[in-house]
């Protein structure tokens, strides 16, 4: 009897142990894009799940970027947040300081670790941020879909008008003038178009030699050079009348600029390298790409999102989340993600691989953003960064371009508000 019981017990234990070993640890990955990016991500999630049996990742769409951020925070309150999600760089300092994110240092060095040295320096967390003289934050974010703005130009249009690809602000100005086509009081073709948006303004700010904050991060420093950047747009739109300001804030303006470019209503635009696939597939002309024009120096911001882990998630789910993030940033995956979307690969070994090298040879446009990384400018690692972007700069730029305020007034007010926000966080 006892032997039988023991036998049953052993079978039960083995059986349950076997089942436990077979049950994968399930973790959620929340993402905030749709369309092609979503398809690509979902197919990779499926591949990850099929490639191993220890973890299973469930990916879900959570709305646009802001809806997702709101839901993450609400979910954090009720302790139902996902293990992993992705977020734009500007929001990272905020989230880190609030204690929402888990450090990845141990994971990276652990048994399922990753070779941090192989990551493209300009695309990593350390390459994105200026730690303002303070101690660097530990690793808590790995690059996901990363991009830089580039200059797209209608190569056929430029060739037809004998216009050289501009490399400086002055050249951009004169090129825009030559490309603009007017009929009476109507402008049939604009020379240049760019969404009046924080991201591009940040680039112009640095191209003029300015920075967002002082090196210690205690005060705003963008007033003068930010005004010059804004004034550049104001002049192009209102004085030269060679630049079209696409209507709408956020992504509507970006979509209008893209559509205008494809429809040959504009000769040159600034927008993300992420649209390169889209442009090449849909333009009925030769699409050229180049660095953003320089002024005092060449400078670009980087953009896109990072993978992060939620601190409050249970440990097994964090492990699962890490395994997924690590896998997604492995050279093989970063190549397939990049090829499918147009975002940049995040690993040096991936870029140097024979496959990518020959891809770049055949498609030189894709290399532009990568090469431009040497001009990448860092963002200050300050919790005020997100607020300054969303509240202080982004909504107020267009007032100057529309002529309801002067660039000087806009920047003076912005400078003051930014300092208020910074001092609020300093407390």
């Amino acid at each position, binding site marked *: 009897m006892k032997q039988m019981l023991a036998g049953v017990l052993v079978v039960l234990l083995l059986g349950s142990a076997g089942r436990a070993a077979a049950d994968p640890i399930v973790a959620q990955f929340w993402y905030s894009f749709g369309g092609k990016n979503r398809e690509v991500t979902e197919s990779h999630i499926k591949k990850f799940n099929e490639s191993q049996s220890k973890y299973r990742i469930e990916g879900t769409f959570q709305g646009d970027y*802001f*809806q997702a*951020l*709101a839901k993450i*925070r*609400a979910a*954090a*309150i009720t302790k139902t947040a996902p293990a992993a999600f992705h977020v734009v760089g500007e929001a990272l300092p*905020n*989230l880190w300081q*609030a204690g*929402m994110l888990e450090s990845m240092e141990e994971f990276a060095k652990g048994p399922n670790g990753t070779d941090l040295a192989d990551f493209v320096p300009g695309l990593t967390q350390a390459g994105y941020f200026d730690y303002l003289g303070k101690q660097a934050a530990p690793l808590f974010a790995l690059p996901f879909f990363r991009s830089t703005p580039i200059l797209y130009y209608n190569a056929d249009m430029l060739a037809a008008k004998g216009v050289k690809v501009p490399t400086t602000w002055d050249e951009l100005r004169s090129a825009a003038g030559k490309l603009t086509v007017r009929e009476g*009081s*109507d*402008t*049939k073709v*604009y020379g240049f178009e760019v969404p009046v948006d924080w991201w591009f303004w940040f680039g112009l700010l640095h191209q003029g030699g300015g920075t967002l904050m002082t090196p210690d991060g205690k005060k705003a420093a963008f007033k003068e050079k930010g005004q010059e950047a804004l004034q550049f747009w104001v002049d192009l739109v209102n004085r030269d009348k060679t630049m*079209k*300001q696409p*209507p*709408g*804030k*956020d992504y*509507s303006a970006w*979509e*209008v600029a893209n*559509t*205008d470019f494809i*429809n040959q*209503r504009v000769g040159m635009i600034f927008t993300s390298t992420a649209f390169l696939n889209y442009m090449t597939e849909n333009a009925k002309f030769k699409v050229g790409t180049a660095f953003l024009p320089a002024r005092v120096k060449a400078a670009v911001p980087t953009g896109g999102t990072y993978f992060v882990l939620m601190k409050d998630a249970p440990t097994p789910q964090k492990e699962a989340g890490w395994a997924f993030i690590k896998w997604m940033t492995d050279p093989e995956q970063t190549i397939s993600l990049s090829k499918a979307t147009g975002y940049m690969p995040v690993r040096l070994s991936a870029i140097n691989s024979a496959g990518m090298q020959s891809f770049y040879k055949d498609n030189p446009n894709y290399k532009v953003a990568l090469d431009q990384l040497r001009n990448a400018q860092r963002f200050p690692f300050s919790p005020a960064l997100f*607020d300054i972007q*969303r*509240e202080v700069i982004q*909504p107020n730029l*267009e*007032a100057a371009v*529309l002529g*309801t305020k002067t660039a000087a007034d806009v920047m003076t007010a912005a400078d003051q508000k930014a300092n208020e926000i910074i001092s609020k966080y300093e407390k």
Partner: protein
Amino acid sequence: MASRRARRDAWLGYALVAPSLALFGLVYLYPVAYSAYVSVFEWDLMTPKRYVGLANYRVLASAEFGEVLVNTALYSGGVVALSLGLGLVLALLLNHRGALSAALQGCIFSSYIVSWVAVSLLWIWMLDPQYGLVTYGLRLVGLRPVNWLGSPSVALWTLVLVTVWKTLGYPLVIYLAGLQAIPGDFYEAADLDGATGWNRFRFITWPLLSPTTLFLVVTLTIASFQGFDIVKIMTQGGPVTSTMIYVYYIYEQAFQYFRLGKASAAVVIFFALILLLTLLQWLVFRKRVQYTT
């Protein structure tokens, strides 16, 4: 006997109303109370709340908030007036049986049931001051292009027009119904008295439509005060702040800037203001409504 019945009725009344009230309290009033609570803090939904007393309300007593109120009133007023006017005219014209009439009604109604996302892109393209269809049409008749969505002085009215265009099917259907509910006897009597078309309208149609009109004023006002999708998709409150209306303002404060305290204070203020306005509107209009009894 009567008082027993009265007491029974009272209990019945409570019994019938209680479940509704409970649900209203939970899903509508609790969030407002929650907002009132959050409105005295500064909160980004992430870090602990920071008590700031009435600071959020003081911040709101600003030109920016005043502009939001004005924009909302203008948007709502424009939408209601145009919807009622156009809806009524169309209903009068389409108020007869026939395939053409039914087909036209269907056409007008089709835009009402389509979602905003689907048509907003088209409107953005059609209104483009460079090559939009509307711009093209304006040029054909010799007018200068207008920067419909990009000009602060015009954008709000553009949204009014697009909203009216999209929701026209609703007042049309309701007015048609109201018209067809008017007993023919009234018109026959008027004809016997030799009434003209305008008089028929003024003394029979319009007064007898007043319940319908009230119905539409109330529903359209409420719907337009909650206008959000069109702003979110087409202008995001811009250019500058010219299309910033109530719900979008709160959404922006709460979910773009993560200033939940300020957003909550705005909620409380609006709630109080509009409650007043709705009661006023109701009291004023119900005196003018005539029933056929």
